[in-house]
């Protein structure tokens, strides 16, 4: 049982939690994730750790309401307990001095990018962060990113804030402007796919942090498997970060949609149930 210390809404569907987890706070590194389960009959879902506070003994999670489990988690409040949480899992981000690094993130992927940006900066890199979202309200953590980045470029689909365009437009702008040594991307699979296609064109080495379906998260079930350069790898123990140019994103997208029908039915049940409560 892990207590929620604070809850903050980034937007109507995106919530930031600080959760009591002193051991995880101590051992986690940038790139690690936790498995979280809400309720006795809850589902185990992976969430990348966005930050940690050693003094308070907390970790930060940023969650977007998507399906049943993320909705149940987002409905928890300060003082409530998360039934089960385990981690840190996965391999930590490989951090060294690469030179100039573009960090391309979108949606809630911006949250787990924050510790990576901080670590890259600390290792002496020039860090240019591109944050993208559909519209102004969905841009998160811009101020925090500015603390660690040499430059933050904001992109919105509708042009309501920053530059109008997709994350790829922002990345391409940087590539055309200066020499870039590495790109790191975290966000929806479809976004990472297009970032990867773009950087491949420019032969820019790119790392993508994948978020697939997992059951145990400890290397046991194989639900998270992805094809990396034609070989099957497990995101939970071999990843979550991989050479983006080797990732079969189309297959990953197909597998992510595997339970969509069941998920839709469950969500309807959940909204009926909460409707009945009101």
């Amino acid at each position: 049982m892990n207590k929620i210390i604070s809850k903050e809404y980034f937007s109507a569907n995106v919530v930031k939690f600080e959760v009591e987890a002193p051991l995880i706070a101590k051992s986690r590194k940038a790139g690690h994730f936790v498995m979280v389960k809400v309720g006795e009959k809850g589902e185990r879902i992976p969430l990348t750790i966005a930050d940690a506070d050693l003094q308070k003994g907390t970790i930060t999670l940023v969650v977007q309401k998507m399906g049943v489990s993320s909705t149940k988690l987002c409905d928890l409040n300060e003082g409530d307990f998360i039934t089960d949480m385990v981690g840190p899992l996965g391999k930590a981000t490989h951090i060294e001095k690469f030179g100039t690094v573009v960090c391309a993130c979108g949606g809630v992927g911006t949250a787990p990018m924050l510790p990576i940006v901080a670590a890259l900066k600390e290792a002496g890199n020039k860090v240019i962060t591109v944050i993208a979202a559909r519209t102004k309200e969905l841009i998160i953590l811009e101020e925090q990113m500015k603390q660690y980045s040499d430059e933050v470029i904001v992109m919105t689909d509708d042009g309501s804030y920053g530059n109008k365009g997709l994350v790829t437009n922002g990345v391409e702008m940087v590539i055309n402007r200066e020499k870039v040594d590495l790109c790191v991307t975290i966000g929806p699979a479809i976004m990472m796919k297009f970032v990867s296609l773009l950087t491949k064109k420019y032969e820019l080495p790119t790392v993508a942090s994948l978020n697939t379906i997992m059951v145990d998260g400890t290397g046991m079930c194989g639900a998270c498997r992805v094809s990396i350069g034609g070989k099957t790898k497990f995101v939970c123990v071999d990843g979550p970060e991989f050479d983006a140019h080797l990732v079969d994103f189309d297959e990953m997208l197909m597998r992510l949609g595997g339970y969509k029908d069941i998920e839709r039915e469950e969500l309807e049940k959940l909204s009926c149930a909460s409707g009945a409560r009101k």
Partner: protein
Amino acid sequence: MDLNEERAQQWRADLRNEIKTKDRTAKTRVHMPELDAEYRSHTRVEEVNLGLTPEMAMAEAQRCIDCANPTCMEGCPVGIYIPKFVKQIEVGDFLGAAKTLKETSALPAVCGRVCPQEKQCEAKCIHVKMNKPAVAIGHLERFAADYERESGQISVPEVATPNGMKIAVVGSGPAGLSFAGDMAKMGYDVTVYEALHEIGGVLKYGIPEFRLPNAIVDVEIENLRSMGVKFITNCIIGKTISIDDLKEEGFKGVFVASGAGLPRFMNIKGENFVGVMSSNEYLTRVNLMDAASADSDTPVFLGKHVAVIGGGNTAMDSVRTARRLGASRAMIIYRRTEEEMPARLEEVKHAKEEGIEFMTLRNPIEFKGNEQGRVTEMVLQVMELGEPDASGRRAPVEVPGKTETIEVDEVIVSVGVSPNPLIPQSVIGLEVTKWGTIVVDQDSMQTDIPMIFAGGDIVRGGATVILAMGDGRKAAAAMDKWIKEKN
């Protein structure tokens, strides 16, 4: 008291004389009552085997001739005092029999259900040498353990005076639990760390309810708790806390029993289509996460045409689960013949009774899917048996050009697992084989890092509950000796 003294006790001697040996061996072996096959193929949680009645158990116990040299015990990896508990059953001392079991086994109700007795204790029974069916030692073990549990008079094994020495166990499966039980008995302060949110390891996530109800596992775990064993869930040694952290906290020894991990796949075309999954994933969803219940948030596919690839016990567990979850066709696809199948005969028999189709001498070579990426068809290569291979079994070879395509909407791959990589990845200096199993001294289960011992599937790669438990006992004895010699 040693075994010979036990056997020489008056009550045992009298009992032996009560019935002539030839009358004992002439009796027919008890038949385990079972749930009706048609009924049980639609019920997921009811156990198939119903257990013996006291009368049946006492009658079966009479078949045992209480040999002077009980070879059955040699066949038991945890060395249960078999003749003693069987004779206790014969005289109706069921609680005494349960106590005897617990002297050497932390999980008698589990072993009585899932051990392959026909390959172990029962294979060495004197009756077998006389060409007669062995004494049903497994059924009797289950009977005694169940009787004790249902009586409400559960005995707690004697625990030595606490010696204050802290021991950590990594993983709460059969190896870890067996080790924890023995160390607690010797007075150690034992803490078991479990990565998942439930205690029990493969007993919970792997073996289905119809073969081993979770409630029964929980009772055995409670028993360990009452012996002073502590359990911490959601904690991964090597990730959440390190072995060095444990050392700093004063732990004197660590037993790694983190089990089998990574499921193996076949690396054939279409294997990543949606609906193709490992048996670990399928069984974890259904068993640990209770995904087939309406109130569970974890989804599971309820396939109508389900193919399970493999011929082991895990394959049987998966295919029988699929049948219970509504598959009209639940099929075992195996590349050899039934004779070479590693699964227990009982599991194969039960599966057939439940309407499982056995498609042997077939090997999948490709999966096909629809536009959404859901698996729809599977191409099978027809095989025949050739010359014996390294395992001594006749190797399956392809019949050139002969393939079949069958319709499937769910495929469960059950072709084995590799060891869990978490501990080998995170403990620097720990010697592992190229397969990722931890290297140990065969006699002591000690690794090249003296304070770390290991056992079960993390050492064996993939074995049975009882072999893992045997490792746990061996490691406990060796660690105790090592700690005492050091101090």
